[in-house]
């Protein structure tokens, strides 16, 4: 196999990302701590630049002998991950600069590495590349989860080692399970080429392989019953990192799942009972347990499990339409959840905690933050005229057309439970007085920028969902259509 220039074109963004990582590394060596939070802003701007660039470059075509294929599908995910990375970095620059002033570039580099892994993943057509990309995404996250640790045993970040260890152990175990499942599949089919699997006749072992992949990935995306690490990790890690962790790796997990289960094995139907159980359990448990939470980070963690359940609902049928809805949900979830967590970060930073009480009277301390949070919460709850509504609606529509009417009714009712706990935060923000000593809240430049971007996306896509829907449609059509030689 020889590599020509044509092999690099589809990977332009990823190569540029590598270049960006080198720039930041060298810049750190040269400038070091003197660069201050500038290094964070630089990373954010680089990612935004790549995001913008993805609209002007032609990224389609196979590369490296078909190991990697660039198309609308991989580009859609690239944009999601680049946007998530940029928003998270702009949101964390200030936090990192204040808490770990001497190690700033490491934090941002780790995020960049993780984004690089994610960016390679959706285009992978070979299992080896897929697994490597997945691990490149996952390993930096373990380090970042422990980032908040300080030497003060009573201080902020005292739960960070626990958070990181849980993420690490679960991550390692789930990788092992996934790999075991994949080894069965590769053993039976004799190839690591995902598109070639479809020619293998199904057998019980074949089914077991898919089942193990589902279980392993279930840990990664945090679906019930593999969810128990989620609330602890979210609570213990630094909040701007959680903003990233709660969306981007989950979507990468879905990208891998769709590639393996639907495109590779063509086995969505076979695993339907399992998937229905996962989805219903996630929707129910996530939303019901969220009601009991008094800490906003834990609340958003449990509600996030519920959202994963809704996404599984769209994942389940595996048709082009349903995957399109899943992608739309993913896009909506990125901007909404990152925005919400960044606001939690500001409140937490000022109050030293993230309980619902710390949100009391936020509207008096910062009307703009309180209004933004309200809109994010409404979007999470799926209320019209913010993007979350369309996301939930499309997912329900997909599930309805797949013959899962009862889950749609159940999900719609559970959404009302969701609204209940989201409104508890709104109630604290708008209907209670702030603590006597609470000062007005101001935002740093990067934070204001990140939150404004999220808010703009939530509101604009809420009014005009068609552009994102169109992108999602193109992406789904490019990938989900059966590969050649399908049975």
């Amino acid at each position, binding site marked *: 196999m020889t590599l020509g220039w044509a092999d690099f074109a589809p990977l332009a963004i990823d190569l540029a990302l590598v270049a960006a990582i080198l720039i930041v590394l060298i810049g750190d060596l040269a400038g070091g701590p003197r660069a201050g939070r500038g290094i964070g802003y630089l990373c954010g701007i680089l990612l935004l630049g790549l995001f913008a660039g993805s609209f002007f470059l032609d990224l389609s075509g196979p590369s490296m002998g078909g190991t990697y294929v660039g198309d609308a599908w991989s580009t859609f995910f690239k944009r999601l991950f680049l946007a998530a990375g940029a928003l998270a970095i702009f949101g964390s620059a200030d936090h990192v600069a204040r808490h770990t002033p001497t190690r700033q570039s490491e934090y941002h580099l780790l995020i960049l590495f993780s984004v690089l892994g994610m960016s390679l993943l959706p285009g992978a057509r070979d299992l080896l590349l897929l697994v490597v990309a997945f691990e490149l995404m996952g390993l930096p996250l373990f380090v970042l989860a422990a980032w908040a640790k300080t030497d003060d045993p009573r201080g902020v970040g005292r739960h960070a080692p626990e958070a990181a260890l849980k993420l690490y152990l679960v991550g390692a175990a789930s990788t092992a399970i996934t790999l075991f499942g994949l080894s069965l599949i590769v053993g039976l089919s004799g190839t690591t080429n995902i598109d070639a699997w479809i020619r293998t006749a199904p057998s019980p072992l074949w089914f077991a392989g898919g089942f193990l992949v589902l279980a392993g990935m279930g840990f990664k995306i945090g679906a019930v019953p593999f969810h128990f690490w989620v609330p602890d990790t979210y609570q213990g890690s630094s909040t701007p990192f959680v903003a990233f962790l709660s969306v981007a790796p989950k979507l990468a997990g879905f990208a891998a799942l769709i590639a393996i289960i639907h495109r590779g094995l063509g086995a969505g139907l076979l695993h339907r009972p399992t998937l229905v159980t996962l989805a219903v359990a996630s929707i129910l448990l996530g939303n019901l347990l969220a009601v009991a939470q008094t800490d906003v980070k834990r609340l958003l963690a449990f509600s996030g499990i519920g959202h994963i359940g809704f996404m599984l609902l769209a994942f389940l049928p595996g048709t082009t339409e349903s995957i399109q809805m899943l992608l739309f949900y993913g896009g909506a979830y990125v901007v909404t959840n990152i925005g919400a967590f960044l606001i939690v970060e500001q409140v937490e930073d000022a109050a030293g905690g993230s309980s619902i009480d710390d949100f009391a009277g936020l509207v008096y301390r910062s009307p703009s933050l309180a209004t933004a949070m309200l809109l994010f919460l*409404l979007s999470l709850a799926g*209320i*019209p*005229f913010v993007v979350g509504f369309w996301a939930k*609606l499309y997912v*329900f*529509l997909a599930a*309805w*057309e797949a013959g899962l*009417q009862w889950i*749609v*009714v159940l999900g*719609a*009712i559970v*959404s*009302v439970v969701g*609204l*209940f706990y989201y*409104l508890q935060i*709104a*109630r604290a923000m*708008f*209907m209670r007085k702030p603590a006597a000593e609470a000062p007005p809240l101001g935002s740093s430049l990067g934070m204001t920028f990140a939150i404004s971007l999220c808010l703009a996306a939530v509101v604009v896509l809420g009014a005009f*969902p*068609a552009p994102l*829907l*169109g992108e999602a*449609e193109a992406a789904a059509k490019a990938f989900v259509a059966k590969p050649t030689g399908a049975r």
Partner: protein
Amino acid sequence: MTHWLSLIVAAPAVAALLLIAVPASARLLVRWVSLAGALVSLFGSIEVARQYDTVAGGLQLVESYPVVPSLGIHLTLAVDGWGVSLLLLTGIIIVAGVMATWTLKDREKEFYIFLLVLVAGVFGVFVSQDLFIFFLFYEIAVLPMYLLIGIWGSSQAVTEAGPFRYVWKVLDIGGKQYAAMKLTLMLLVGSAFILAAMFGLYVAAGSSSFDLAHLGSVKYDRTLQLWAFPFLWLGFGSLAGVFPFHTWSPDGHASAPTAVSMLHAGVLMKLGAFGIMRVGMVLLPEGALTWAPLVGGVAVVNIVYGALSAMSQKDLKYIIAYSSVSHMGIVLLGAATLTPNGWNGAVYQMFAHGIMTGLFFALVGLVYERAHTRLIGKMGGFARVMPGVAVFFTLAGLSSLGLPGTAGFVAELLVFLGAYQSAHSWWAIPAILGAFITAVYVLRAVRAIFWGKGPSREFSELSDARGTEWAALWILGLSLIAFGVWPDLILVFIDRTTPDYLLLVLAGGAP
């Protein structure tokens, strides 16, 4: 293509946007901008009524813009005779509502923003001809309510008595935040059912369009009709106050600030009834015919139970709130009769009750703002200090019990006639009994508050209505009499549309 309908819907929304730019300290400007938005909508509604051709009938003033073409969602606005009358109702109520809350003191800017957003949603429901857009507007009309009640509402002292007093205390029953949460959650559970039925219709009609005309042209199979109709009935019915899903209404209306109670009891509950008739019955004729006995039976329970509950209340706002439950029963009964008189009466009752209950809540707000109590046991002889309020309250009360010459009479007469002509003539008996109980509790309340001994010393300094409050009272009071003496002002529109829809139901439901 004319743009009157989009003007009506957009005017409050634009006013709300303008308000964001107005500094909160410019308190008079805030009010004038809100009033301007409301007035534009009212005059737009009057203009629509003037332009509506009652000879041609059907849908008029059609506008259409694509929203999500791939799913067949279009922003289609058009108005039928029912829509004309309900637009007028909403216009009148919002103008009166803004005027009646002119003296609000706390965070007025935000209050008016939410109020105007809400009313834009209400206008939108009455004119949208796309089921999906209908649902969107419906949600906008429901959701701002949470903040409006939770922030600006008033709480009632929790009753520290009875076997459940501990539960009452823990849940903060009677508190405004409890009421706001209860209302929002109950109505959204209703929305969940509406959404499910909507999907059912959309998929059964070929997944190509949410257009009401398109959905109406499909003959759905019996199974779908039989499950989707009760979903729509209960979904919309939870907003219309269908027993036993009415329990949010007394708490919510009692806790809400004046303009919000006026709008909610006056117009929002009608959205529910309108949804049942326009979407549920017209699209699903077979379901409607099959379930009509249940719908009517429950409506009768609404009438009698609501009236009896109102009779046993001590809190003035709860009396009016329960009377709304009872009067909405009359609307639903009219709908369930599936007769021309019944349907005309149902829509006319929506209009008449809207005006009447708007007037009631405006007056209750006035009294509460001055006396700082809602317990009628403490009041008495108020007519001596606030004669104007007493006169208007008596007028609203007389319309409520259906006195000839008031709008309430026309509506109730038509519904009772329809009930008698329907397949279930006996429905008329408890319905008329309900009107009788209404007379008991309304007259009792009027006597206890305004006549008799008093006012006691603490209330001797109370003042009558003033300024814009007079304007609100006159608008609503005059409407009650005008539409009572000359029902054709509105009935001409309603009666033009009723036969069209009724024919669809009766023909579609025939085996």
